[in-house]
């Protein structure tokens, strides 16, 4: 393994100290992600992944972090991670412009997404702006500056986002399911709370969270697109003395002993299910769960999705297996006036996958699944998202796209059989799920009269 280790600090600037070049075997602590992917260590700790690609002259620049959405303190603060990331991106550093302005001036797009135990800061920009964005993003996050102006701007933005999210059935149902599946840890709470949660957070908490969560050793910097590996030279170093600090460990949630149903109010009739699934380390099982979600719920093409669209065109339906460190979660959310009928179709769908599909149906479904995997890897953002997500969840080699079609994910997909998929469905999806049911508010006077 030592053969592949390159000391390229001189070539890539002072900030990259260890790099495995494309095609070389990776050093022990760096994953080998393929012949066209460069993986390295940032000088102040943390990982950098560069995946050049021809095609559109754009680049995705993403910073991924392992950090609890509710903060590190004993008292959970929903939205803290989301607000902190927004404040840092909005705050003008001592030198230069804020990250938001740098990306905006390039005509690019900046998004910040917070999950239960991870954060993604993602920009897509014209390729000639990639270096400037790598520099700006690492400057902003590795040594975060939190200004009053940045805080005010970010607070307004995140409050508005929280308001919008409160009307999104997918988010509301997923949060309810996670809240019931896990009794503690960040998974128990919404990653983005309601606007009141946001306004309750003070600047001191934001600063404290940012200083710990956004350290360079805790970062995975991913750049993908029309760039060459030297784009990583633009990354700045972190704060001094941090290089040997370990990244954050994944949160260890406590599973609920029994799956209790949840009933809540929401703006429209909605519902969903959630089951605990395999950990990311169980690659074949996790891939089988992805296959099931694709087969049943792929937008436009899924077995259940197509039937719901045909019978209930106004209904909303989404189903995913969320690959997480341990455990993963299969969840389904639906909404609309026909929610009960949609639920029945969802039940039918799950029943179908608990027995092996016939050979022809399975071959067709697998061909579609493999096509969908490829189709979902065609943009720099999709590639960077995969590397970032699977890195923070602890299995970068398993990321779809790592090592191309010879990689672990594609191999796991190719190894699936109808019987194996059914056995995985039976193992995880035969248990009682958490069931969420939501109905519109009923005025009390009306309630009494019913």
């Amino acid at each position, binding site marked *: 393994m030592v053969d592949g280790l390159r000391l390229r600090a001189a070539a890539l600037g002072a900030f990259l100290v260890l790099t495995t070049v494309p095609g070389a075997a990776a050093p022990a602590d760096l994953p080998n992600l393929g012949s*066209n992917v460069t993986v390295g260590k940032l000088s102040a700790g943390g990982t950098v992944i560069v995946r050049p*690609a*021809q*095609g*559109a*002259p*754009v680049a995705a620049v993403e910073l991924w972090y392992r950090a609890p959405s509710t903060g590190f303190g004993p008292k959970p603060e929903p939205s803290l991670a989301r607000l902190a990331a*927004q404040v840092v*991106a*909005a705050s003008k550093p001592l030198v230069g412009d*804020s*990250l*938001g302005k740098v*990306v*905006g*001036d*390039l*005509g*690019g*797009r*900046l*998004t*910040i997404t917070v999950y239960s135990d991870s954060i993604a800061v993602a920009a*897509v*920009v*014209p*390729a*000639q*702006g990639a270096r400037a964005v790598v520099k700006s993003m690492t400057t902003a996050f590795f040594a975060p500056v939190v200004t009053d102006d940045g805080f005010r*701007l*970010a607070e307004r*933005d995140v409050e*508005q986002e929280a308001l*919008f999210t409160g009307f999104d059935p997918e988010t509301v149902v997923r949060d309810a399911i996670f809240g019931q599946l896990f009794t503690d840890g960040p998974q128990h709470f919404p990653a983005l709370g309601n606007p009141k949660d946001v306004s309750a957070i003070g600047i001191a908490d934001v600063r404290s969270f940012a200083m710990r969560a956004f350290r360079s050793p805790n970062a995975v910097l991913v750049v993908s697109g*029309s760039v060459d590996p030297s784009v990583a030279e633009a990354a700045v170093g972190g704060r001094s003395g941090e290089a040997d600090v370990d990244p954050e460990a994944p949160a260890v949630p406590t599973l609920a002993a029994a799956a209790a149903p949840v009933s809540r109010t929401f703006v429209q009739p909605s519902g969903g299910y959630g089951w605990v699934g395999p950990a990311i380390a169980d690659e074949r099982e996790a891939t089988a769960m992805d296959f099931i979600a694709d087969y049943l719920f792929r937008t436009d*093409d899924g077995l259940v999705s197509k039937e719901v669209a045909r019978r209930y*065109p106004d209904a909303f339906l989404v189903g995913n297996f969320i690959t997480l460190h341990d455990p993963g979660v299969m969840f389904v959310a639906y909404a609309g006036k026909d929610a009960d009928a949609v639920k029945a179709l969802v039940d039918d769908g799950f029943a179908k996958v608990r027995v092996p599909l016939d050979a022809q149906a399975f071959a*067709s479904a697998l*061909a*579609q699944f*493999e*096509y969908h995997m*490829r*189709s979902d*890897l*065609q*943009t*720099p*953002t999709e590639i960077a998202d995969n590397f970032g997500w699977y890195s923070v969840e602890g299995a970068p080699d398993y990321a779809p796209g790592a090592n191309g*079609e010879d990689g672990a994910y594609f191999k796991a997909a190719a190894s699936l059989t109808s019987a194996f998929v059914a056995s995985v469905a039976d193992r995880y999806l035969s248990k009682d799920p958490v069931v969420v049911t939501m109905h519109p508010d009923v005025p009390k006077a009306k309630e009494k009269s019913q």
Partner: protein
Amino acid sequence: MTHAFLRPLAVGALGLSALLALPAAASAPPARYPQAFATDLGVTKLIGETDTDAPIAGVQIFVAAGLDREGPKQSGVSSLVAECLERTPVDGVPLRDAVAAHGGSMSYTVDGRSIHYYFESDPERLPAVIGMFARALAAPDFSPATVAAARVALVQRAGEGEANALAVGIAMFRQSYYLSGAGMPAYGSTTSLAQLGPADAAAFFGATYKRPALSASAVGKLVPGLGDALKSLADVLPDGTVAATQGRTRVIPAEAPRIVAHRDVSAPWVVVGFAAPAPDSKDFGAMLVLESLLAGAFDRNSTTTLGFVEKSVGAFYLYDSSPASLVVYVNGSETEPSVALREVLVVSRSLSLKPLGTAALEHFKTAAEGRFMTDSVNVSDRSYLLGTFAAQGLGPDAINAALGALERTTAADVQRVAKKYLQRYIVALVLPRQTPSQ
């Protein structure tokens, strides 16, 4: 909401002034897409962009059977034909399912000038997928049952559009601006679709699906069999002539007509529609700059990028129809619409009165280029742009030609184009229903 609007507007105005004082950015080498090429397939051409890193390949097959070919009583017929083709049996299953079972996908989009079918799959399988489409074209299923199923699907899709205030506003403007079928809704309406039967679908197909009406553009790892597959597909269609369409539009009067509709929306939306130059016009680059300027100049100063529902003001340059148009929208849930509308019109006028400063021009050109590129990343979007730009006179390397037009744009161009196109407009107002009967 008024105060919330005034603050970002002030920021926007200050931003424009401040930009005049900015030093011009150092010039970087222009970014380019991989060079595209044209392959002569006999009657038609394939415009292609090779991208060997793309895990899939995609091909757009354009047929000159878009909205501008629909007659006054045919609204929705182009989509109806497409829906029937998707349902035409191939190997015993509907074409769309046959393509999916083969590890691919198909979709279609009707626009002003054409209908374009998009097929995507593993590169090696793409010729076979196109072969499936050829078989459907050879024997399209316009049976009453298939037409009825297609009609149901279109009514659903038309209904989805009715719930989107921006889509409704744009459709209102188009209907008012275009005198040809280009102004009609892509999926028709419940009323128009009810009038269309198997004979109408077959007649429209017979009149428009001719070999010379076909063109194709592809992106990805393009295998040798692709050209042959497209040639075979063209051979399925009859020869014939494709009459030129007249891109007739209304002359927009100086007094700015207003059209009003009520829908089940929570807040009013305003869509202001302008005439705009075609992609092969010398004004094209300047209009891209104006689109970017109008889309970004009024927004609240958000750090992360806002979606169209969150934006208070946005703009879209619609070059899918001939002549093209530009729409600027105001989202009444984010801002006070009458104030915002006034500001948009003031800026539109002022852009025609004096040229942008050097730094401001470079700023908006950079933003326009970035927006153009980041909107055109996946294989579907790139192949569409290649095909539609090539068909509108930008040559085979059409996307790069569009970027070149943007880069050559001067401040005088922007001023001239603002003066030429932004002084007359149609205002479409989409208002919440006040009573159930509205």
